[in-house]
């Protein structure tokens, strides 16, 4: 449901969206193409969000990363920022908040 709503909102905002259903598929996409922005959960099957973030930071450090998570725990949010992510949005997200944050990062690139 979250993925469907994200795809709908971002596509409606005029962005091209590629969905990876798990961390393994995301890694495959990242090896095949460059992206302007990555939105990822931290808890992904097969390859975790942390592993994915480490890979992006190593291979494409200029790509902004927004973490989507249900967690409101400060330590998890801090861990994500310490890994170098650029922003953090809690699920379920506010549509306008998502649009604004995505736009903000895409305008920088």
């Amino acid at each position, binding site marked *: *449901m*979250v993925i*469907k*709503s994200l795809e*709908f*909102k971002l596509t*409606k905002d005029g962005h091209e969206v590629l969905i990876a259903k798990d961390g393994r598929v995301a890694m495959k996409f990242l090896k095949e193409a460059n992206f302007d922005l990555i939105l990822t959960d931290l*808890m992904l099957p097969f390859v975790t969000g942390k592993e994915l973030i480490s890979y992006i930071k190593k291979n494409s450090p200029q790509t902004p990363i927004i973490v989507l998570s*249900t*967690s*409101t*725990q400060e330590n998890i949010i801090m861990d994500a920022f310490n890994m170098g992510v650029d922003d953090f949005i809690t*699920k*379920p997200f506010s*549509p306008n908040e998502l649009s604004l944050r995505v736009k903000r990062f895409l305008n920088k690139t």
Partner: protein
Amino acid sequence: MNNPNASLKAGPTILLVESHIIEQENFAHIAVQEGWHLVICNSGIDAIHWFNKNNKADLLVIEEDSAPLNGYQTADYIKAELGLMLPVLITVGTVPTQQELRVIAYAEGVIKKPFIKSTTILQINEILEKFPERASIQDYSYSLNYLRDIFDGHEESVLESLELFSTSVNTELEQLNVELQDMDYNRIREIAHSIKPSFEMLENETGRSICHLLNSEAEEIEMPGLINDLQLEFASITKQLTRDFPELKIGR
């Protein structure tokens, strides 16, 4: 835990106005364990809108410094303008010494935060006993407000999401039973984490709270009961969805 299976739907309806997420979680944890039907609003204005739509709750618990209307103003509006006679508890950081008259005028008492299980339950049960007339349980297992917002009112996408909710959450709930049998409690926490947003997107507070508990502080011994509660809540939502949208493939 006080027989949560029986009490989830039979318990009192409590509307909590609380802006701090941690306190919302504390209260939700207590509510799930006590079988209170909990509705959370972020402000007094939200609470007024909720009462306009739903009319009945057994208790309003509202923070004193809610904004833009504070707890007293909100209580006054709900009682005087909406004509609702439900009891109100004001939540405060420190027990007020100079606002006693305001409490008497607008509310039935105060609760000191942070919410602590023993004292919160005691105070709320005392109030509920004083006001025994129970509001009828509202049929609000789900709401489409968020989905309609996120899909810009595109009804087809909203309905597709409902089908997706039905199938995907059902699969995960079945998996919870498997993991429970295997006693893989970490996997149970992961699954609860992954389906929590689905309940949130349907604005189902009970499902959200149970998922949060399973994902965070629930002990292993509590998990079978919580999973059972979650399955009951899911069944309640899908039953209502089937009734409201017979054309959808809900539960089929």
